[in-house]
């Protein structure tokens, strides 16, 4: 046997380091940058609490497609867009408070289901290229969204509230205020600790989703999705409707992303009609990967570790950049670089490991045959 090298290493420590290289590197970066930035501990706790409650739902939406073998669902953008359409209508109809938010979720659900179904069909036709296709689909849908929201609304789709329309009479403004539903879920059970608002309502909802996901994995459908995610052919041979199962995973993910985006926006309080959803996919996926997930395996633990690490990095970078070189701009570019870089690195690592693992498997079988041969001398049959 050739000597062991990094690619075929069986040493558990090295393996661990390679498997979790992304979170480790980011953690080191963050540890370096926090003191540099000069921000206080209290500031971090406050920021992280907000960001945790704001972003977790969206990132949790990514888990189910990973289970079904669809990889990182770049198509959650479609769900985000559905959510925003719901919010536009609710704002138009001037419905405020928690009812307003729930109504937005209600209206956007069928839209999210439809978009998710469409995305599922497209992805089924691009087996093996799900992630690129999902990514391009997001861009494509953005164009359609623009046509609908920028040209259709106020025209073919009746909008009465002139506050949200552009001066020319149709098309939604670039930014609309969501003051009517601002922080309604966050403040649902108001709790303040040391001057920091703890958004119990949102956290409860997130916890519910976590429980749902854990329960879902134990159902037959969850098991079917896992089977499909492991091996399409064997799943099909054992009678599972692979195509339908894959589509279902995308539909569920899209609907969850829809709600996630609504939760996100209710916290922020304003909606950038054309930009809010743009980076949704990238940031959510980068966060998940920073949490130690991979294309084939993602858990709730990865989500929360990821949110904390990623968003700390996010908060810290501009300040650290300013301290380091006197330009906050540097920090901002840096965090964009990290977001894209994390995805590039994780995807490349996963693709490379996949091939290495196949190779290792092959060697294992080959080695086994040799041992078999040496032990048996002749393999059972020659006994006359």
């Amino acid at each position: 046997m050739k000597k062991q090298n990094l690619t075929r290493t069986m040493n558990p420590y090295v393996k661990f380091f390679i498997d979790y290289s992304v979170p480790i590197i980011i953690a080191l970066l963050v540890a370096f940058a926090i003191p540099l930035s000069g921000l206080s501990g209290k500031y971090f706790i406050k920021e992280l609490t907000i960001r945790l409650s704001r972003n977790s739902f969206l990132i949790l939406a990514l888990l189910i497609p990973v289970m079904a073998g669809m990889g990182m669902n770049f198509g959650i953008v479609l769900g985000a867009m559905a959510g925003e359409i719901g919010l536009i209508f609710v704002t138009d109809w001037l419905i405020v408070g928690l009812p307003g938010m729930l109504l937005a979720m209600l209206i956007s659900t069928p839209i999210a289901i439809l978009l998710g179904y469409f995305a599922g069909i497209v992805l089924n036709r691009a087996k093996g290229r799900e992630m690129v296709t999902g990514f391009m689909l997001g861009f494509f849908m953005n164009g359609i969204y623009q046509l609908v929201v920028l040209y259709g609304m106020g025209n073919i789709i009746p909008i009465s509230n002139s506050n949200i329309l552009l001066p020319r009479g149709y098309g939604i403004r670039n930014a609309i205020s969501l003051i009517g539903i601002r922080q309604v879920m966050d403040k649902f059970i108001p709790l303040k600790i040391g001057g920091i608002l703890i958004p119990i309502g949102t956290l409860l909802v997130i916890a519910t989703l976590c429980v749902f996901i854990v329960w879902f994995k134990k159902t037959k459908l969850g098991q079917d999705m896992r089977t499909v995610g492991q091996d399409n052919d064997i799943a099909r041979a054992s009678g599972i409707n692979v195509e339908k199962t894959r589509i279902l995973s995308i539909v569920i993910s899209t609907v969850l992303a829809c709600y996630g985006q609504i939760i996100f926006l209710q916290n922020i309080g304003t909606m950038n009609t054309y930009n809010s959803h743009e980076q949704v996919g990238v940031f959510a996926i980068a966060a998940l990967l920073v949490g130690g997930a991979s294309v084939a395996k993602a858990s709730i633990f990865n989500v929360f570790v990821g949110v904390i690490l990623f968003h700390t990095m996010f908060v810290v970078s501009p300040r650290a950049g300013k301290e380091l070189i006197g330009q906050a701009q540097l920090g901002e570019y840096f965090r964009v670089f990290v977001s894209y870089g994390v995805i590039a690195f994780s995807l490349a690592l996963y693709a490379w490991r996949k091939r290495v693992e196949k190779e290792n498997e092959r060697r294992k079988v080959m080695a086994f045959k040799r041992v078999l041969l040496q032990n048996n001398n002749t393999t059972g049959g020659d006994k006359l």
Partner: protein
Amino acid sequence: MESKEKYLLKMDNVSKDFYGNQVLKNVNLTVKIGEVIGLVGENGAGKSTLMNILFGNPAIHETGGFEGKIFFDGKEVNFTSPFDAIDAGIGMVHQEFVLIPGFTATENIFLNREPIKYNFLSEVFGNRLNLLDRKEMKKRAIKAMQMLEVELDSNMLVNEMPVGYRQFTEISREIDRKYTKILVLDEPTAVLTETEADIVKKVIRKLAKKGVSVIFISHRLQEILDCCDRIVVLRDGSIQKELFPSKTNSVEVAEYMVGSELVKNIRKSKEKRKFEETILKVNDLWVDMPGEQVNKISFEVKKGEIFGIGGLTGQGKLGIANGIMGLYPAEGEVKFKGKSISLNNPKDVLERGMAFVSEDRRGLGLLLDQPIFWNIAFTAMQIKDDFTKSLLGGIIKWRDDKAMIKVTREYIDALKIKCVNEKQFARELSGGNQQKLCMAKAFALKPELMFVSEPTRGIDIGAKSLVLDILHYYNSKYGTTIIMTSSELEELRLTCDRIAIVDEGQIAGILPPTAKPAEFGLLMLGKKSEVEEVLTGEGKD
């Protein structure tokens, strides 16, 4: 001693043809309740087709169905999908594992038939929202494995299991099914150690005692003799004979499997050619080709010989050529004309003067979307810089299409390749002409030694002899050494000077073409100690 026991399975005059090619002819097979049948046959004898028909493989239906009737458990049946067969009580353990490596043994045993705990959500959203009853799954998995008397942790992941235990997991899956009445095992001991194989044999007898019938397909004759009640020998699509282990022996089985008539046209008059030099010396070759693994093979080939390699499918004969030519990972030592070649390096082997006509014509042998002249000339262009014009002092090697076409026309004539012209796409040619194209590609390299694998597979009868004649021609005119790998014993005996039979990845023996067919059969069935190795010039007659 014909007792009036009920028949569980009765296949009545079953015939099947694939687009005119008759694969099964009037097969009559019966299996009693609790009986263990051994099914033996060469490649292409029809074993897999017969089982595919029984198991409802959609490929059968899509190619015109079958003739004849099948009676199972008293009723006439016609399964159009494996699920119908499974529901009726037919279980099958295939040669390739259908296991999910990342799942536990329990999960694999219950794949898509997991016991379920009902909950109210399924009323609304469909019954896939019921929870899995993992306790029940574990209980039943342990029960199945107890029957096997195997110490298997039901929670172990398949990819962490020793290979033999994966086989047991597969068998457990079939045993757990409550309604399994008959179990088909296709080469179940291929990857097992002796002890593990014994366990399988014990399980088969246990199942038989419990009233489950077993159809046991294997090429390991001793196992068949050990645990079957009756042996059915298939040859050329029909049942040659049914034998009882207590009343027969391996030679008889081998004879029926391979046939005992002498091959027509065998060159009795052909003098045993004498060869001096060794051109290829293979030592301890290991080749990792999925499905055709080679496990420590050594042999020598003399210059100018036509050396045949035969054996049953999956036993490794195809791996030899593929490994030496660098297409699949290989280890060991191969010396060509006295000097070692570097393995896993197709370029080196081609440059030294060896060429290969692969068995995978369409996948590996040709660029289907390129014209004929491209296909013929490409390798020669790569290895020998043929068909290129040097420009700018040799930095640029311009492709010389005209020269490629000229040479192609010569080959089209010489090999009688039927085509519109040399610019026709390879995809459009018939199977036989594609094969000739692959051979032309190899000949264009003017090799000293040529590997040819499955030269007449998928070719109609008329073209078969043409292809073999071409090989003879090149061998006699240019002295090209030919190593021919084939599933068809007859064509090996027609063409070759010596024939090696590969079994379980090793050479079971080397025989002259004039050896009795039964001897070949015995080698294929794993009885190599029976037959003395024959060196050229010292053969038995």
